[in-house]
């Protein structure tokens, strides 16, 4: 009989259950996805042969973080479940249902909901992993090859992790229902809240909170000076600073606003402020957690995307995308697959001078070609502690002075297959007198280097093979090991960075999804007890639109406060990366911030809609 009642209870709140269920499903799907990416050797080895060890550590760290946030998330999702159910169960108990029976009911319900969601989530996770990884790989131009979404160890880990979690949560729920008395269950929402607190302590706390945050930010600004101490200092001060700030500083602002009668006595302001005041004292822990996780997630995405910039930067070191040493059929066929933006050419003749130990190779290049063809190279320097490249043109005069090292000479030679040779730029007449075969170098700039990388790399390789296999080539002198080509550099750097980039991006988004829905469930858990308040406001003549606006504002502030603090955390936190990695992470800040903002706002809107749905009753 009770089972039937319990099922009817679920049916009547089907929509809310659907939200809860899909939230849990999503959590396990994300967890599975990350486990697969982090533990599947096919993924790691394929992409990160060089940085394998480091990446494993970083991924391990990622798993730990994800486990923690998943745990927090489940706890809040569960409190939403309890908030929906305790009135029903309290009622059954009042009607004489045995406590042990009720305990079994809630235990089973929690476990069934949780495990079903986990199973569905892992199935979903397999598909998602496949989809997301291929999208990310192609979108970000990552160097990761075939990747299968199904990986058994990850599947088992995910199921085990969630099963244990839900067992714990189910025990907790049973404990909570069995131990608390019926009156409390029935009137949980009317429990008086602590109202007055020591004003002096609050004041000290507010100051302390802001001061601790300031110290933490200062530490991150001066990471270079503080060295290893930076991270522990920043961690400690920012964690406690955030907590104190939420616990007192924001409530102090609300109290100030409440003193301003002109503001307070306007429309529903007094109500919204009252809601916020009580909410904030109840939300201190979750808001400070959310702000920290928000910073971590946003930081992860920003830094992750910056590895992308690092690849970009590495590509700046070379001016030409492809160097063609000669042609054959294969080269010509491959060339058709590449969209060429511009072609620059020059001719050279290679002559061996001297004998034995004195033997050296000289490349003769006609002066007028250097003068007219505008051959460019990238000049490297450090500017404000950043790598900097500017584009320069090779000039005839570069070959007139006889210094030991001449950058232009070096750059010109490195465009030929004979890296060790000496270049001589000579007038037309002299050039014509040199008795050697004329070779032509073609320097290509292409469109879409990154998206068409595979074809470009192939073209470069084919050209090198062609050079090596041509009959007249001087085999022991040729040095086209390609380490100088742009393709080679790109492959080297991107194979290191893409794993980090992928993980930063992925972890960031997963974190965001989890923290936003944690906040969502926390807000929604309060919806049931808020229902009578909105009912009453409506009865005394508040327009629906005004109620909706008040809800949107209240939830908006609850979402905005941790986000704002999180953004500030990130802005200062990036200083760390600037000094550690020498990356200018502030460069394209708007990209990660926009991605993040859009997703966060979507979660906010979803919360508002669900909340309004629970709280406001339909008017016919």
């Amino acid at each position, binding site marked *: 009989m009770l089972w039937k009642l319990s099922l009817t209870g679920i049916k009547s709140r089907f929509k809310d259950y659907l939200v809860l269920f899909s939230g849990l499903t999503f959590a396990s799907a994300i967890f599975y996805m990350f486990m697969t990416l982090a533990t599947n050797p096919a993924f790691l080895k394929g992409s990160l042969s060089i940085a394998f060890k480091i990446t494993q550590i970083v991924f391990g760290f990622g798993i730990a973080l994800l486990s923690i946030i998943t745990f927090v998330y489940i706890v809040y999702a569960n409190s939403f479940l309890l908030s929906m159910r305790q009135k029903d169960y309290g009622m059954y108990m009042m009607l004489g249902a045995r406590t042990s029976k009720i305990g079994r009911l809630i235990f089973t319900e929690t476990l069934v909901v949780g495990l079903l969601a986990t199973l569905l989530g892992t199935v979903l996770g397999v598909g998602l992993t496949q989809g997301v990884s291929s999208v990310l790989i192609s979108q970000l131009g990552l160097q990761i090859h075939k990747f299968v979404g199904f990986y058994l160890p990850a599947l088992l880990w995910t199921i085990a992790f969630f099963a244990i979690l839900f067992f714990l949560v189910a025990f907790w729920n049973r404990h909570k229902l069995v131990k608390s008395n019926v009156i409390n269950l029935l009137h949980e929402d009317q429990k*008086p809240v602590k109202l007055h607190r020591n004003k002096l302590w609050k004041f000290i706390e507010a100051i302390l909170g802001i001061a601790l945050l300031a110290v933490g930010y200062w530490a991150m600004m001066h990471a270079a000076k503080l060295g290893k101490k930076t991270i522990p200092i920043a961690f400690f001060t920012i964690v406690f600073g955030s907590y104190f700030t939420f616990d007192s500083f924001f409530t102090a602002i609300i109290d100030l606003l409440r003193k301003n009668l*002109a503001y307070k*006595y*306007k429309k529903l302001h007094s109500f919204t402020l*009252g809601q916020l005041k009580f909410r904030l004292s109840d939300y201190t822990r979750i808001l400070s957690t959310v702000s920290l996780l928000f910073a971590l997630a946003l930081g992860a995405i920003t830094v992750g995307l910056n590895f992308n910039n690092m690849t970009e930067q590495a590509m700046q070191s070379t001016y030409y995308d492809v160097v063609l040493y000669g042609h054959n059929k294969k080269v010509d066929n491959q060339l058709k697959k590449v969209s060429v933006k511009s072609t620059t050419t020059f001719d050279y003749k290679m002559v061996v001078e001297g004998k034995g130990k004195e033997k050296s190779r000289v490349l003769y290049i006609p002066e007028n070609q250097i003068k007219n063809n505008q051959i460019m190279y990238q000049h490297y320097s450090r500017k404000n502690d950043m790598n900097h490249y500017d584009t320069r043109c090779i000039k005839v005069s570069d070959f007139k002075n006889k210094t030991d090292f001449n950058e232009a000479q070096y750059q010109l030679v490195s465009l030929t297959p004979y890296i060790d040779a000496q270049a001589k730029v000579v007038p037309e007449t002299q050039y014509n007198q040199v008795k050697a075969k004329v070779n032509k170098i073609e320097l290509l700039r292409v469109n879409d280097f990154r998206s068409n990388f595979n074809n470009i790399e192939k073209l470069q390789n084919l050209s090198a093979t062609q050079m090596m296999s041509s009959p007249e080539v001087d085999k022991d002198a040729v040095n086209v090991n390609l380490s100088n080509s742009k393709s080679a550099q790109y492959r080297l750097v991107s194979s290191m960075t893409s794993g980090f980039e992928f993980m930063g991006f992925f972890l960031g988004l997963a974190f965001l999804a989890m923290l936003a829905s944690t906040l969502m469930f926390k807000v929604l858990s309060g919806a049931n007890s808020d229902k009578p308040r909105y009912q009453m406001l409506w009865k*005394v003549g508040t327009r629906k639109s005004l109620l909706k606006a008040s809800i949107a504002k209240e939830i908006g502030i609850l979402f905005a406060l941790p986000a704002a603090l999180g953004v500030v955390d990130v802005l200062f936190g990036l200083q760390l990366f600037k000094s550690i990695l020498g990356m200018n992470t502030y460069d394209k800040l708007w990209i990660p911030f926009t991605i993040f903002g859009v997703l966060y706002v979507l979660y906010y809107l979803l919360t508002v809609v669900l909340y309004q749905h629970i709280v406001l009753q339909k008017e016919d």
Partner: protein
Amino acid sequence: MSEVVQVQNITKTYGKKGEKQYQALKGVSFDVERGEFVGIMGASGSGKTTLLNILSTLDQPTTGNVYINGRDITGLNKNQMADFRGQEIGFIFQDFNLLENLTNRENIALPLSLQNVKSSQINPKVDKIVKRLGIDHILNKYPAEISGGQKQRVAAARALVHEPAILYGDEPTGALDSKSATELLETMKGLNENDRVSILMVTHDPYSASYASRILFIKDGKIGKEIKKDGKSREEFYQEIIAELGRR
């Protein structure tokens, strides 16, 4: 004397067409004069709450019209209804319905802020009504910190602060002990007699009803009988109500 409330032949049928329908009100008509204190009594399920909901625009009648202060409230749209409730109607509910997260002063001020009354005028208005109701010393406390009787006075203050055309009460003494109930009823009587506040109160309780000047008995969705105090003492009126209830 003019009428504050005119009820003309209203019916209310619950349930959509084609589904199971139930007619809770079967043609109800009556008036409330300005400054009158009217009680509505009836057995459980007779339609009292349904009637009060319609009179306060919380619900609409299936047929019939209701005029309050001469204005037909059955033709209003939703926003107009909300505004109308906010301006012309004051409510006292059985379970107080105060907002626990606002101080008592803020609770009382709420109807005024909803009507965009200037903030500088709000506190004086609140102070005036709370003095009248004798609750000026608990204004800065929260509802959770005061007694049931005090809560109901705060609720009364909130219902009256914007000087509505009529004060509705649905079992306002239902959750109070007899002493607090009597105090509230005396206060309501005083407001009615001295400040000429029009009151319409639904109640089960003959004692509460005896404070009214006229009582309508509702039975199976219709007004059955009406009795008036007409200068009788409250005790005599109480006996008459008991007798009337016994007759059914």
